[in-house]
């Protein structure tokens, strides 16, 4: 029995390396398709939006307002512009984690996806830190005393690793435990009993991990870009 990320077909060969069409890739495309479809629907409806909201417009406005208030309260007025990036990261991780509910393998149960997400957070942390604080950004590495430099450096390097492994480990644990229970149960019982596990591992842990990835990224960026002052 294997819970590995199966290769479905060969995509192309490049410099002697074969690139496969994996389960993760298929479910990432499905998630991307769902998100793009949602965006197009909202964009088409946007031209029909009125000053006094009604129905569908209410839902969209509530979502956008909640998230922009959340960004403002976590990162401060100055960094409110990061909101758009974090809405899309949150939506992508949430949809990825919930794709386990429709029988796909969640893309976040693959280290490649979570490492890519953590790497973009890493670039944003240091990019915004250098852009907004310049000299004080360098000085941070030597505080409180210059001898702390290696410790500070290790702390910075461990941030993306812990972000990537937290999301990956949680989602993979869900995939493996739910998969083991499905293997254990007879066919007749597979429809009702695992629902409790899906409710915990996919719905609760999925939403929680998406939220935590977003909040931690926000806090890290805010620490570097604004500092303690």
């Amino acid at each position, binding site marked *: 029995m*294997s819970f590995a990320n199966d290769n479905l077909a060969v995509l192309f060969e490049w410099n002697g390396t074969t690139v496969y069409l994996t389960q993760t890739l298929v479910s990432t495309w499905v998630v991307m398709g769902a998100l793009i479809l949602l965006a197009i629907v909202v964009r088409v409806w946007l031209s029909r939006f009125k000053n006094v909201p009604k129905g569908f417009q209410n839902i969209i406005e509530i979502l956008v307002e909640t998230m922009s208030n959340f960004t403002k309260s976590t990162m401060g007025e100055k960094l409110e512009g990061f909101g758009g990036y974090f809405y899309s990261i949150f939506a992508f991780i949430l949809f990825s984690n919930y794709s386990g509910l429709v029988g796909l393998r969640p893309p976040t149960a693959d280290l490649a996806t979570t490492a890519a997400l953590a790497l973009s957070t890493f670039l944003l942390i240091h990019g915004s830190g250098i852009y907004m604080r310049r000299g004080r950004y360098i000085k941070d590495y030597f505080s409180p005393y210059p001898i702390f430099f290696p410790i500070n450096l290790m702390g910075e390097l461990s941030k993306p690793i812990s972000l990537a492994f*937290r999301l990956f480990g949680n989602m*993979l644990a869900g995939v*493996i435990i739910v998969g083991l229970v499905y293997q254990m149960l007879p066919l007749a019982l597979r429809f009702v009993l695992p629902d409790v596990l899906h409710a915990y591992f996919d719905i609760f842990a999925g939403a929680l991990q998406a939220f935590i990835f977003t909040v*931690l990224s926000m806090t890290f960026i805010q620490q570097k870009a604004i500092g303690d002052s």
Partner: protein
Amino acid sequence: MDPKAFVLGCSALAAGICTLSGLGSGLGQGIAAGKAAEAVGRQPEARGAVMSTMLVGAAVAETCSVYGLIIALILLMANPLVSML
């Protein structure tokens, strides 16, 4: 004794021991949840802020047990020791 069987058996044992890393984070999360319940009891109007802070803290505490889980998975599914024989 077949050396491969010995290595695989020891790896399975090690994977079991790796899951003990859940012990510490379980204790920590329990303490965090207890303190959060105390805080909500003392100040019920701050419920939302206390809850979100506790959830983030609990998830951070969970990281070390996730590392243990990943080591256990590597030992079981992609064992690096077998190829060294």
